[in-house]
């Protein structure tokens, strides 16, 4: 569509800017404010420059939390993206079966975060949860309250259960948009099913997969409630991800300065990596 130059269009955008500025910029300024000051009391504050940042970067717990977070996001992306695409490939494209299947698989996306946590908190418990009981019945020791590996497995599976539908629905939308002529031409060319996937479907899913990867990276990096409800960050600190760490610092320990510095670093890391992901995905697309 041809776009017209019109600076009066600003008036239309003004409400959005005002609302989001109020809701985002003002609080962000507060955070910046706290990150460079040491606040002893309501009246006494001292400018400390980058001291909080240095303290946060040197903090082992913060570094470990970053490490855990990256590992978690990587695992989750590596499982959810292929799985989501696979689910999209087996969803019926049209008809009442399609509508029903779409609604069915979308259900986990509508569940409040704490309820998701609650479901898996019980479901993965050794005596009263179906999952926990079954795994233990197979002879594999499984207890997420005591064993870090079990805790990780539970949380990863919970996230996969919760968010794979998002990837699946995005990929599904992309697949539905492919004109049948491509499949017909592939048949005439004698292409195998694998060739159809790599040369037709995957290229055409480029845009939606970019959105999926970015969204899943961001959201998994910011995750709080679901793992917190299940493990509380434990056992020990084995599942203390970045948001959990931050909330502990800010609300639990009330270390406002370090928490603010941490917040900014946290936000910057997400921005940076989102940008990196986005650039890489665009490069891959144009190769």
């Amino acid at each position: 569509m041809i776009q017209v130059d019109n600076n009066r269009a600003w008036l239309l955008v003004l409400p959005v800017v005002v609302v989001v500025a109020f809701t985002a910029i003002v609080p962000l300024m507060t955070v910046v404010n706290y990150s460079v000051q040491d606040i002893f009391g309501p009246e006494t504050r001292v400018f400390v420059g980058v001291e909080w940042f240095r303290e946060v970067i040197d903090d082992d717990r913060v570094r470990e939390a970053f490490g855990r977070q990256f590992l978690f996001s990587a695992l989750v992306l590596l499982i959810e993206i292929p799985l989501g695409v696979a689910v999209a490939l087996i969803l019926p494209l049209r008809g009442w079966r399609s509508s029903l299947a779409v609604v069915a698989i979308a259900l986990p996306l509508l569940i409040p975060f704490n309820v998701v946590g609650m479901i898996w908190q019980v479901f993965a418990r050794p005596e009263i949860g179906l999952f926990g009981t079954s795994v233990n019945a197979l002879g594999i020791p499984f207890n997420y309250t005591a064993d870090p590996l079990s805790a990780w497995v539970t949380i990863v599976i919970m996230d996969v259960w919760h968010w794979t539908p998002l990837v699946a629905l995005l990929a599904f939308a992309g697949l539905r948009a492919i004109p049948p002529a491509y499949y017909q031409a592939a048949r005439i060319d004698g292409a195998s099913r694998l060739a159809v996937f790599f040369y037709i479907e995957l290229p055409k899913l480029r845009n939606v997969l970019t959105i999926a990867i970015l969204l899943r990276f961001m959201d998994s990096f910011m995750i709080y409630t679901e793992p917190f409800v299940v493990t509380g960050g434990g056992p020990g600190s084995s599942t203390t991800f970045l948001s959990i760490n931050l909330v502990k610092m800010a609300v639990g320990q009330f270390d406002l300065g370090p928490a603010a510095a941490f917040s900014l670093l946290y936000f910057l890391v997400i921005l940076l990596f989102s940008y990196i992901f986005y650039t890489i995905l665009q490069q891959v697309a144009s190769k």
Partner: protein
Amino acid sequence: MSAISQPAKRSEALGEKRRDARRRGLSRWGSRAALCLYIAFVFVPIYWLVRMSFMETTDILGGFSILPRNVTLANYETIFTDPSWYLSYWNSLVFVTLNTLISLAVALPAAYAFSRFRFIGDKHIFFWLFTNRMAPPAVFLLPFFQLYSTFGMIDTHLAVALAHCLFNVPLAVWILEGFMRGVPREIDETAYIDGYSFPRFFVTVFIPLIAPGVGVTAFFCFMFSWIELLIARTLTSVEAKPIVVAMTRTVSASGLDWGLLAAAGVLTIVPGAIVIWFVRNYIAKGFALGRV
């Protein structure tokens, strides 16, 4: 010629379905089996929750059974009769609806501007909106608390509704803009030639054309606001306490009342399940931000 085009259209729609099945190349029964397996994976944990909601906590903790033991409606009864429970649902509903209305109200004109016009800073604002989606809610807990305290808005529905705009407004702008791109400019121009003022055109002509887009956007605003916990918990205490917070604060002397919590949980899934049925045809497109 229109007499023949009608049966032809029906004909082609039927033809499309048959082609779809074969074009995938996957055995139909293999795909169906795999899909059923995945849907089972989705539903079994939900079933477990439902099962618990019909049991007493002592039965839940007492032993293991696939089917609910000693089925009881007591949990649901509690929720429907105890004001502190059902009012929490009401609170959630209020601020989620408020948030949806505010988000739509500000996003619609903005999305229109982005789709039709070029203006100073347009690309930057568009991108800036998206960066708000990237901000961890955890970062905003204290600042939000301070900000809304200053305005005396703690524990109000409006506070949560506004706070959720942080991530919902960018999303709304993105989805709406995607749908608006599909409406040709010519329609706008025809309306102006016909003498419509901009507000009248927007409300009576344009919005009906993107009705599915508005529906999908409303659904997503509803969804992301409904499921959020951190911010909702920070900004409320008693008056505006939403159900998600009520659930996290339900600890009694004898520990967590699992049966009651499970029933509450099931009832939080119900509104979403109902709403999604109405937008089922557009939900995939909505997730793709209207860009597919």
